C-alpha cells in the first residue's frame, strides 16, 4: 500500500497523466491554445475525475467484485461515467446556470476522455481504498492542470514567435509536448 504522499507525488509528477502516461492527449492538444480555456478545462476535468473515481469505485466493489465480473470493469465504467456526467450537467444547468456557462462547454467534451477512465481503472488496478482513490483522482487532476497550464503558456508565446510556416501551430505544439514529456521523464525512478 502506498502512503498518501507517494500517491500525490506519483500522480502529479512521476506518472503525470498526460506527460508520462499519455492519456487525455486529445484535450491536451485541443484546449491548450489559450490559458483561459486551459484553466476552464482543467477545472472541469478535476471535477469529473473525482466524481468518476467515486462512482467507479462504488460500482466495482458493490456490483462487479461480489459476482466475479471484474473483467467487465472497462465497459461498465464507461457506462457509469457517461451517465454520471450527463446527470451532473443537467444538475448544474438547473441549479448553477453561471457555472454551467463557464464550464458547460467542457463537460460533454470530457465525458469519454481517456484520462477520466484511465484514473478509474488505475484506482482499481492498484487496489486503492476509496479514500486513496479520491486522493489519486485529485492529484492526477492537479498533474493534468500543471501540464495543461504550462503547455498553454508556452503555446501562447509560440503564437507570436517567428516560426517557419510549416512548423506553425500543431507541429510546434507536438514538439513542445514531447520536450515537456522528456522533462517529466526525469522524475522516473524516484518512486
Amino acid at each position, binding site marked *: 500500500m502506498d502512503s498518501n504522499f507517494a500517491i500525490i507525488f506519483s500522480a502529479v509528477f512521476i506518472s503525470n497523466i498526460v506527460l508520462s502516461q499519455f492519456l487525455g492527449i486529445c484535450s491536451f492538444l485541443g484546449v491548450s491554445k489559450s490559458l483561459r480555456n486551459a484553466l476552464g478545462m482543467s477545472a472541469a476535468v478535476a471535477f469529473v475525475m473525482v466524481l468518476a473515481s467515486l462512482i467507479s469505485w462504488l460500482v466495482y466493489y458493490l456490483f462487479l467484485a461480489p459476482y466475479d465480473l471484474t473483467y467487465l470493469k472497462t465497459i461498465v465504467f464507461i457506462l457509469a461515467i457517461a451517465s454520471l456526467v450527463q446527470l451532473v450537467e*443537467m444538475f448544474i444547468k438547473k441549479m448553477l446556470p453561471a457555472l454551467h456557462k463557464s464550464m458547460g462547454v467542457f463537460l460533454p467534451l470530457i465525458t469519454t476522455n481517456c484520462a477520466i477512465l484511465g484514473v478509474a481503472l488505475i484506482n482499481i488496478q492498484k487496489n486503492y481504498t476509496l479514500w486513496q482513490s479520491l486522493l489519486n483522482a485529485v492529484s492526477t487532476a492537479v498533474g493534468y492542470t500543471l501540464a495543461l497550464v504550462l503547455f498553454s503558456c508556452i503555446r501562447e508565446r509560440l503564437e507570436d514567435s517567428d516560426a517557419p510556416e510549416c512548423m506553425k501551430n500543431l507541429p510546434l505544439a507536438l514538439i513542445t509536448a514531447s520536450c515537456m514529456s522528456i522533462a517529466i521523464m526525469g522524475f522516473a525512478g524516484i518512486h
Partner: protein
Amino acid sequence: MWKSVALVAGLGGMFGAILAVAGRKLAVHTDPRIEEITNLLPGANCGSCGYPGCGGLAEAIVAGRDGVSPCLACSPDSKKKIARIMGFTGDIPLSPDLRKVARVACNGCKENAPKLYNYTGIKDCHLVAKYYGGPGKCNFGCLGFGSCVKMCPFHAISMSENGLPVIDYGKCSGCGICARQCPQMVLYITSASTKIHLKCNNRDKGKAAMVDCSVSCISCGMCAKVCPVQAITMREDANGSLPVIDHSKCIECGLCVQKCPRHCLHKLDPITTEHEHGTVATNKKSNCTSCPLGESCGQKQ
C-alpha cells in the same frame, strides 16, 4: 455469461432510469427563439453590442431588453428575419446608412514612409510600438505588423505587400475590434457610405510631419480653407493637430482632395451593396489597394 449480460443490462437500465427521471425533474425551459436568433446573428462573438457574445444579445432581444440594432455585424436580411421571429409584421425599414466599416487612416506604405531602423523581433504591433514608436520615421502611422489581422473575428483584414492592412469589405462588419486594439489608432470605424477620408494619422505640424513620410498631413489647413461647406475643421489639442471631416456636412465635392498638397485626403469608393455581407469583393485591382495611385503608379510589388 448470463450473469454478465444481466448485470450490464441492469446497470444500464438503472442509469437510464435515473437519467430519464432527472431529465424530467431538472429540465430547463429555454425559449426556442433564443437559439433561432443566435443562429441568425453573425456568430463571431465580437462583443461590440455590449453583451457577452451573440448568445447574450439573443437573450436580451428575446427578453425585450434590447433590439437587434446594437449588432453592427448583422446583415440587413438577418435583422429582418430576427424582427419577424420577434413578432414584427409589415414593412421593416432598414436604412443602408446603418452599415459601418473599418477604414485605414494611413498611407505610409514601404515607398512612402522612410524607415528609422530595421526591426527583427517578435511581429506584434503592440510590442513594436514600444521601441521608439516603431521602426518607421512616423510615430503615428501603421506599423505594419498585422496585429489587426490576428484580431479580426471575421478574417476581413490582410497585410498587403506594401506593408499596410487591406480590408475585405465583403467580410468587414464594422465591429470595431481592430480600431480598439490598434496601438497607433490608425484604424477607425465610419459609415460605409462616406467618401472623403483622411488617410493620415500624423499629428505633427509642418516640417516635423513632412520629413516623416512623403504623404503625411502637415496640418497646413488648406482643406479647411477650400471646403465650400466648412465641413473640415482643424482640430488642435494636446494630442496634436489633424483635420476633422464632418460627414454630415460634407457634400463630397472633392475639392479638398485636389487641393491637399500632401495627397493625404482621398475620395474613396463608398462601400455599397456590391460588398454585401458574406460575399467576397471582386473589385481588387492591384496589390496596392490602399494606395491612392492604385494601378497608375507603376511600382508593382
